[in-house]
């Protein structure tokens, strides 16, 4: 049986025009993602990984090419693709509980259904004691838990995560990575996870897509065949880390050179 790709990215290019200058952010990206796959987009800043994620989310459509989700072309954002932002994007005027319930209220679920789901999620993400708090009272890690719970509430088969743990300290980060893996294994969601941390991508992903710096292309598509939980001190882990490190460094140095050239360019 041939499984239909859950997310199919075909010949996707994206050009941003700022005044007279045109920047090619993505160039001819082709990528098929299977249901339940955990894919990391890895690369230095400016490699278009967030642009690609936003295109899948439907926030900014590609200038050429098309993205299919479940066989349907992406035209707008929707609750079938839950998004977790680096900046959390919780609604500060809603309590933790109301933030999680918001998506369910939009779907006009009954009070009882909402209460039950929100209760279960609060427990799963260890947020019970904070249900009546406002986001401003929470730490970064707690806020990101709420944001993950908000997406899980929707039961969306796809989770899009844009450097979700980028602003957290390393301990909290590891904690949430483990939590995310637990959730992923339990619900078998398809995850696209943007990061610039090589270690994070190896720790989490089935598949790591290394992207090039401007225009963003797929430099390498690496499968990670280590069982979870992965040990960052193992030889296998470190070999892969070294390999990916070289690939990312090449792009990083191109990035640095362009930064130096940029002021004299015009």
């Amino acid at each position: 049986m041939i499984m239909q790709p859950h997310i199919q990215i075909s010949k996707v290019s994206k050009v941003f025009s700022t005044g007279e200058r045109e920047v090619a952010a993505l160039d001819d990206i082709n990528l098929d993602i299977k249901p339940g796959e955990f894919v990391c987009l890895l690369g230095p800043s400016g490699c278009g990984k967030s642009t690609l994620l936003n295109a899948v989310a439907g926030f900014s459509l590609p200038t050429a090419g098309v993205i299919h989700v479940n066989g349907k072309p992406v035209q707008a954002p929707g609750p079938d693709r839950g998004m977790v932002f680096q900046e959390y994007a919780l609604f500060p005027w809603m309590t933790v509980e109301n933030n999680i319930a918001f998506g369910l209220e939009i779907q006009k679920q009954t009070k009882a259904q909402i209460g039950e789901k929100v209760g279960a999620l609060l427990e799963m993400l260890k947020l019970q004691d904070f249900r009546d708090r406002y986001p401003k009272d929470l730490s970064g890690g707690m806020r990101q838990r709420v944001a993950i719970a908000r997406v899980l509430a929707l039961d969306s088969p796809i989770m899009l995560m844009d450097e979700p743990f980028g602003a957290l300290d390393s301990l909290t980060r590891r904690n949430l990575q483990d939590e995310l893996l637990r959730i992923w294994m339990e619900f078998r969601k398809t995850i696209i996870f943007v990061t610039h941390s090589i270690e994070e991508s190896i720790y989490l992903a089935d598949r790591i897509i290394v992207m090039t710096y401007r225009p963003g292309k797929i430099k390498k598509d690496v499968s990670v065949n280590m069982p979870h939980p992965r040990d960052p001190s193992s030889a296998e882990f470190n070999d892969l880390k070294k390999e990916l490190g070289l690939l990312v460094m090449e792009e990083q140095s191109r990035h640095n050179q362009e930064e130096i050239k940029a002021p004299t360019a015009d």
Partner: protein
Amino acid sequence: MKNPYLAKTFETLQGFLVPIALLALWQWLSTQAIVNPQILPAPTKVLAKWWEYLMPMEAFDPARSGYLAWIFSGEMIRDAYASLYRVVVGFLVGAVLALPLGLMMGANDRIYKLFNPLIQILRPIPPIAFIPLSILWFGLGNPPAIFLIVIGAFFPILMNTIAGVRHVDGIYIRAARSLGASQTTMFLRVILPAATPYILTGARIGVGTAFIVVIVAEMIAVNNGLGYRILEAREFFWSDKIIAGMFSIGLLGLAIDTGMNRLNNHLLKWHRGIENK
């Protein structure tokens, strides 16, 4: 050893130091007749006048009215009530007009472009400059005064509402869209609450302007209210009553501002800038 309670009391007492010194100087200047007491009456005289202005003019008579009605029958209370009534009505009318328009202008670029030129022309005209026109249109009494207050409250609320809607962080819009929010939900549950800090700032400025305008309006278009009373006192050369009236105006302003502050804190208890109790 330092006692924190004592330190706190000391600090509070320190705050009274300058006002007390000033009052003492004022009292001395006036009783020594260094300054003409007609022009600057002693604080004790002002206080006495204030009390007289506050209290009912007639003795309490249970046959004629209840105690509560009697205690609130003083001239000042009636003046303060009249002024407050105008501020509240004018402010509410101004807010009811400004809020929907501001929300629409902030959310929709075409509506913004349609109304913005007119608003930019009218906005720099101080509400006070509308006095002659308002008397011409509405005669004397409450209507012209309330009209002026409406104008005074309208523009700050309008401008802040527009800014509030326009400054809603795009990330909330994106998050709500990806959760599947419809236009209506987006507006009512995301844009409106996100804009509340701005809107409330506008309301606070609006009330402040309304309070300035009411005093001026009462000096010209009406024959009661705190503003009218101090102008009337000038005609009789009652400088003690003028100062007592000013003092009352200050107290009413303080009360209004405190009320707005409470409302702010209540509505914005989620907001980062405000301490939670």
